[in-house]
């Protein structure tokens, strides 16, 4: 009963890990393919549910590790650090704030003059979301791809090292790049938006803004969506309210004001978001492909050249009537394992065969523990 419950729970966790990776891909695709906000909101909610689930899973595991006095073992050897990094920070800095923004954002127009300053949150979200890729290690942990614990451990070790290295490099780069004086595409885009704000502000103050001015600003391709006054009087809007609500979420919009804070400019932030989504998909693809290579190319190679010959030799040494030789691959015959296997084939097995022949102890395949009397 207890075993079947544990199995069911493990299966649930495994399913959630697979689903959360699919959800991550969909989240990025939703931006790249410009899905409507309804679907994207759903992805925000599911993202939150997944993060909450993994946080609870981590807390439960941590609780049992504390109860059983094996916290350091859990964190270091059982990869509790992956459980932690792929859950708590994401809930706090990624899906949590996203869900909060979703529920507190409400109608864009109502919130227009009273928006959250989500820039800082967005930055944290961007950095935190990199940690999502660590979940791939979690899925790897759950796949039983070989019967040998040694092969499993080696492949798991090399995979988690690779994925962790990629994630750490990305994490450090994303954090550090924010402080570097490099005019990236995002900064150029933001500068252009500032120019638009200054230009429009000057025009409004000198002669009053005309429809022509906004058409010119629109042509500048800075993603200007709407200009309004402090009192919510709309001076310019590229889309109707319905269209805006249908295609833009809180995080897709950047609000800028003039110095006097009399004018509010709403800019489309999707190009920046899409750029990030593309990067995310690229990273995820790299990680998944690297993992697949380890799983489907390196793992069989490891089994073929290390664990399989060892397994055959172990069988031969443990079982009296096991006399199969190790298949020595010409290509790798100089490997230590195959040199040992050659000795096993040429020396050990013939010797064992002779000893068995001379031995007077009876031998049976039947074991007492296998026989029910």
């Amino acid at each position, binding site marked *: 009963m207890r075993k079947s419950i544990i199995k069911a729970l493990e299966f649930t966790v495994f399913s959630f890990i697979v689903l959360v990776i699919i959800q991550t891909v969909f989240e990025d695709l939703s931006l790249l393919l410009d899905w409507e906000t309804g679907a994207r909101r759903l992805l925000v909610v599911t993202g939150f549910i997944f993060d909450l689930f993994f946080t609870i899973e981590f807390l439960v595991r941590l609780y049992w590790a504390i109860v059983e006095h094996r916290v350091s073992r859990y964190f270091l050897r059982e990869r509790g650090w992956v459980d932690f990094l792929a859950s708590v920070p994401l809930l706090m800095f990624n899906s949590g704030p996203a869900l909060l923004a979703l529920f507190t954002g409400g109608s864009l127009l109502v919130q227009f003059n009273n928006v959250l300053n989500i820039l800082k949150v967005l930055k944290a979200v961007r950095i935190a979301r990199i940690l999502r890729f660590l979940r791939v290690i979690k899925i790897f942990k759950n796949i039983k791809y070989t019967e040998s614990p040694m092969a499993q451990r080696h492949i798991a070790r090399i995979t988690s090292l690779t994925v962790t290295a990629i994630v750490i490099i990305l994490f450090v780069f994303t954090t550090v790049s924010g402080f570097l004086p490099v005019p990236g595409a995002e900064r150029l885009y933001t500068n252009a938006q500032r120019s638009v704000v200054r230009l429009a502000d000057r025009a409004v103050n000198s002669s009053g803004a005309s429809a022509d001015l906004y058409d010119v600003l629109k042509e500048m391709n800075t993603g200007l969506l709407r200009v309004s006054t402090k009192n919510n009087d709309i001076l310019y809007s590229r889309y109707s309210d319905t269209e805006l609500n249908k295609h833009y979420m809180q995080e897709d919009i950047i609000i800028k004001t003039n110095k006097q804070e009399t004018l509010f400019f709403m800019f489309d932030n999707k190009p920046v978001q899409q750029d990030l989504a593309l990067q995310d998909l690229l990273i995820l693809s790299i990680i998944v492909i690297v993992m697949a290579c380890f799983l489907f190319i390196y793992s069989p190679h490891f089994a073929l050249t290390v664990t399989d010959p060892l*397994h055959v030799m172990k*069988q031969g040494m443990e079982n009296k009537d096991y*006399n199969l030789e190790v298949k020595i691959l010409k290509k790798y015959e100089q490997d230590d394992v195959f040199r040992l296997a050659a000795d096993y084939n040429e020396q050990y097995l013939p010797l064992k065969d002779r000893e068995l*022949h001379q031995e007077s102890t*009876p*031998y049976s395949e*039947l074991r007492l523990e*296998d026989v029910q009397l």
Partner: protein
Amino acid sequence: MADEQTRGVQFISRLLENPALTTFSPLQKELHIINFLKLNAAQLFPTLSSAQYFPGKNMEQIFSIIYGSLKQIINKSLFPHIEKLLREQIDLSFVSSLSTNGATAENIDAQVTTFLQRLLQKDIARINFAGPLTALETGISDRYIDESFTRRSYLHFELTKVQKLSLSPAEIKNMVKLSLMLKTAINLLAVAGGDTVHEPRGTTVQNQFAEKVLGVLQQELSGVPMPVLQSALQSNISFLENDNIGATARITAVFAARCSNYRQFAKIDRGADTPDKSWFNIARKNYRFYGFDGKMLDEFYIIAAEKGW
């Protein structure tokens, strides 16, 4: 008494159904069960001497009942199986090319069947018959003889030029199979029943002993041609002690030994070589020890490697 036998049969039937024995032939199963009982006698005694099984009996008595039941069960399927093998696997028409005693295939069939039924009452014969029986069941000798005739190298030369058999390949295969069937005749002079101690596999005998058995065997199996009887009995002599042993006898010796622990349909572990190739390679290293023909083993090894057997 009948009740005890029923319990013995029930006990043995349960052991025979054990998954660990599924890949073994009936006689191999028998040997494994006997050895199992010997090895675990002390642990089994409290259960076997309980009211559920054989109360008031000592281990020797219990063992005797169980072994009787085991033999009874195995014999039920063994003898019809031997008859079937003789009838379906061995074409005895080749005997006319080897002798002029006028014995028909039917006569030989009947003689061999009766002889084996009697011979296999001896425990040592039962143990030694497991290998040849499995070799006959699997048809392993046919495969290798066919290949050697295609290759026309050492074995072919030994059969046709040294032993000078003027038989077709199919007839040689049948001769080897009959030789396998009668290999255990070397135990003809052993005491019936006897002890069931674990005997070393393929123990060789001296020339003189084989000659002595041949004299008796000729009387018992008058229909079987002399070359076949010689082949069967000489397969128990070391080739190192007598290099005049015929090729068919050497083939018989090799395949009987090969099949003594042969497991049909056994799973081959990943990373392991094929069963035949492994066995022949080990046998090549130990050929002096077992008295096999080393060159013949080399040829069989090459065939097994090339064919993936």
